[in-house]
């Protein structure tokens, strides 16, 4: 059957399970430092980058942009991002809206990207790195973490060997669960419905956050298409019990529901690709390493998408892990060295917990009904607006813990 394949054995410094926006970016960062990786992904990259694959979009913070610049992805990405010039906030479309527009000294609110564009730029850079071996469409059969190294056996019999195993499979990471990590987790009882929208009027680089008691309804600005069509990404939070109903709506009925909630701010709208949804939950592990294993991205910390911090936090994991492993390699320490992994864990622990906890508090605040909570929410939005400041404070905290910000996050 697969006897030939069964004899195949591949070796690299690091075996990364999950070749998404966090896992593959890690491989690129390691390659730039002279470390090789084998990247395993269960999906097909061609399907992941196909037009209209999904409506997912990410806010890219200044630090994440620095990382992309340092890894050689910025040139391809620069023309594709939509700068967020302002955040417009309304409470269930009650009269009045609050605009947050940062001053010059506040720093950028970030840039919005379709995840598809991030993926394409990432795969292009990865394809040029000889130290990256990408194994897409691959199913993991077994994982072993031994005294001298790790071995991953794929369903087709191929064996991948390395010094360190990295779990970058996202929030449902089977590697994390198999290793017996016990994340603190709770469910919000809500589901985020994600879709790409095209619309009649320009969004004017404004992100809309419209707060309903069921949760935030967000419209994140994307760059216009080549023909001038205006685009935004929709993140609509609904109660879990209502989700099936919303997903089952026909396209016309779905758009009618969306339009009702948007209050016509963008004029006529249309769907730009299929709808998808995922349950919102919070999980966090204080422990992000084990014997020859490191967790990165959502495998370590799944957070609410309300503040758009998920990918940014994952890329901070990448920057810290690349620096720790590269510094170790300079000293002759292998990637699976327990001291290096302990350093990565110390470096990341404070940052991930603060961001996850802050977004959790916001989410709970927005879930309350009534006039007072509504006022508190408006007040709380000032906090959201100040998130870059809070973020800076978190980072300063992390800096105090670690001595410095990862090099890859610096301009």
């Amino acid at each position: 059957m697969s006897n030939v394949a069964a004899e195949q054995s591949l070796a690299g410094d690091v075996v990364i399970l999950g070749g998404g926006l966090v896992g593959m970016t890690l491989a690129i960062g390691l390659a730039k430092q002279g470390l090789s990786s084998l990247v395993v992904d269960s999906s097909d990259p061609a399907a992941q980058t196909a037009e209209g694959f999904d409506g997912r979009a990410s806010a890219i913070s200044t630090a994440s942009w620095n990382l992309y610049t340092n890894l050689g992805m910025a040139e391809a990405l620069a023309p594709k991002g939509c700068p967020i010039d302002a955040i417009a906030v309304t409470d269930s479309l009650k009269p009045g809206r609050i605009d947050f527009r940062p001053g010059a000294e506040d720093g950028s609110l970030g840039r919005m990207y379709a995840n598809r564009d991030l993926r394409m730029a990432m795969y292009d850079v990865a394809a040029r790195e000889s130290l990256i071996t990408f194994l897409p469409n691959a199913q993991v059969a077994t994982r072993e973490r031994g005294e001298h190294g790790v071995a991953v056996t794929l369903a087709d019999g191929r064996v991948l060997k390395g010094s360190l195993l990295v779990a970058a499979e996202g929030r449902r990471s089977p590697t994390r669960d198999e290793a017996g990590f016990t994340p603190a987790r709770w469910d919000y009882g809500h589901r985020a419905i994600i879709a790409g929208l095209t619309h009649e009027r320009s969004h004017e680089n404004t992100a809309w956050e419209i707060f309903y008691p069921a949760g935030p309804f967000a419209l994140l600005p994307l760059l216009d298409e080549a023909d001038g069509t205006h685009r935004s990404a929709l993140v609509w939070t609904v109660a879990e019990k209502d989700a099936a109903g919303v997903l089952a709506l026909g396209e016309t009925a779905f758009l009618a529901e969306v339009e009702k909630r948007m209050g016509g701010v963008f004029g006529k709208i249309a769907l730009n690709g299929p709808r998808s949804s995922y349950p919102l939950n919070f999980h966090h592990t204080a422990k992000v390493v084990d014997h020859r294993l490191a967790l990165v991205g959502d495998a370590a910390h799944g957070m609410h998408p309300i503040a758009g911090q998920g990918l940014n936090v994952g890329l901070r994991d990448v920057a810290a892990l690349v620096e720790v492993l590269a510094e170790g390699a300079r000293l002759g320490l292998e990637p699976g060295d327990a001291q290096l992994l302990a350093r990565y864990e110390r470096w990341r622990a404070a940052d991930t917990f603060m961001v996850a906890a802050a977004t959790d508090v916001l989410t709970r605040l927005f879930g309350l009904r009534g006039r007072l909570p509504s006022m508190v929410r408006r007040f709380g939005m000032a906090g959201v607006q100040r998130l870059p400041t809070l973020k800076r404070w978190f980072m300063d905290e992390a800096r105090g813990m670690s001595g410095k910000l990862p090099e890859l996050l610096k301009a």
Partner: protein
Amino acid sequence: MSNATTLSAQTIRPEEAAHFGKLAADWWDPKGQSAMLHKLNPVRLGFIRAAIDTHFAADPRGLRPLAGKRALDVGCGAGLLAEPLHRMGAAVTAVDAAAENIAAARAHAEGAGLTIDYRHGELAELGLAGFDLVTSMEVIEHVADKPAFVAALAQTLGQGGLMVLSTPNRTPASRVLMVEAAERLGMVPRGTHHWDDFITPIELHDLLEAAGLKMGNPQGIAWGPAKGLHLSDDLALNYIVTVTRA
């Protein structure tokens, strides 16, 4: 050499060799009895790497600064330092007085697929010479005849070679923290250190000078609650130095 056996009896204390032999199996467990050594390893490797880059004008970003060079680690234990030196590109020879340590070191290197020339025995008897890099970490404080040991180290260093030594300082602080507290709290195994055997940087300087060697500026290895073990200007506990031919 007629004096070799005498030297052997002088520099290896049988009770110390037996003590480390018991630790051999546990050496490579980062949470085991040698946990403190594992934590110390990246710190002293940081010093060694900087010294290599300076001495050999190596690219600080390179991953194999010792490629084409021969390195010797004296008092290698189970290979905690020898393996990183090998990964940095050196052809490594490593020596230890305890046969159990060498057995543990060989087993570990074989498992990791690393080729390291491990030798059990007395340094002066092994006829080793001409090394580009010689390291001896936390060893001299365990040696009875320190001038003989330093002379034997000097024999191994090639022309233009670099030596790196580290050892605890003999200060009130090291007596309280490294011997009394660290051993009582189980941070290092009991019987690891005898404070009276510790040497100060000035004493080490004089020992090296007598053997025709020149000591560089010592750097301290200190401990703090936030930073853990780190390189520091504070020499009170432990220090690490570069050494070259005078």
